[in-house]
């Protein structure tokens, strides 16, 4: 059996990136829930993880599933994800974060995931394609389209 590092090391090394990914995918309000559920699931599965696994890709994959769960729950609760109320601007969330979160939320799902996992999660398109499904080329295309759309919305925002 090959040794895995203590889980604490996984949290301190990858926690910040996963939180940025969660904020980008579900917005700043639900990001804490998505982060917490991600690391709890990861802790549960950790002893069975193959020792040569790519930890970052594994965590982002879990975060992706949790983010979808959290978004669905939020939708059922009729909380408008794309337009968070002003009160949601709490500590650690400034207006620029909200702007980008809104622009990201407005993207088609596949583009949003591809952009976030590649550019914020730092995953190569090969890993992104595994997470969101489809070919490497389609992941690359979705990210490029997403970036073009973001530039347009961010550029038009005064």
């Amino acid at each position, binding site marked *: 059996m090959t*040794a*895995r*590092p*203590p*889980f*604490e090391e996984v*949290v301190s090394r990858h*926690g*910040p990136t996963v*939180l*940025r990914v969660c*904020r*980008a995918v579900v917005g700043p309000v639900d990001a*804490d829930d998505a*982060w*917490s559920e991600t*690391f*709890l699931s990861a*802790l*549960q599965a*950790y*002893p069975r993880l193959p020792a040569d696994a790519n930890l970052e890709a594994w965590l982002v994959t879990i975060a992706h599933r949790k983010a979808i769960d959290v978004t669905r729950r939020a939708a059922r609760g009729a909380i408008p994800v794309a337009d968070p109320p002003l009160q949601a601007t709490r*500590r*650690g969330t*400034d207006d*620029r*974060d909200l*702007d*980008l979160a809104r622009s990201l939320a407005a993207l088609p799902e596949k583009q949003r995931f591809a952009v976030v996992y590649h*550019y*914020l999660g730092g995953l190569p398109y090969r890993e992104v394609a595994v997470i969101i499904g489809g070919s490497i080329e389609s992941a690359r295309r979705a990210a*490029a389209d997403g*970036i073009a759309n*973001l*530039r347009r919305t*961010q550029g038009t925002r005064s």
Partner: protein
Amino acid sequence: MTDPIRDHDRTADLFADIRPPGQDELQVLHLRLEVTAEAKGLLDVAYRTVDTPVGTLLLAATPAGLVRVAYEREGLDGVLEGLARQLSPRILSAPQRTDAAARQLEEYFAGDRNRFDLPLDLSLSRGFRRTVLSYLPRIGYGKTASYGEVAAAVHNPKAVRAVGTACATNPLPLIVPCHRVIRTDGLIGSYLAGPEVKQQLLDLEAGA
């Protein structure tokens, strides 16, 4: 064709607006993870460090009890890696579980406590070593015994060297008082944190 590397650089500024999470935000999330992991029975090893007159100590506990006390000179990162290998990699920095141990150690170093009353998990030591460690708490506060006397007490009078090994590999120093085992000639002998720390503990217990 666009150059993917240059494209990546130009795109980075889009995300400059999502600033890296602050330490305080991550600490709140970490605490939440500690509490939920404990509640769901997923926290196999919880640890913390404490500052004491003999330096920084690592305290680690399983749900069964305190499983490891380590001196800084043992290399705390290496100790945690060892616990991940020997017990479980489900390890988090989570001080709550070792609150009682930390408090009792503080009282011990203040001279206000002469025995520890804590659930212990001896699963890191087996066989004869475990037998020796189970015997050691019978050597009372402020007393000493020789390696030979301990060997005789566990009905294996020729195993003097093995008693020395058991003490040198004690996973729970201080709590399981291997510092009270000294050489037959009266010299204090070796200690995993160095003979000067052993002397310091014996002096403390002698009320010096």
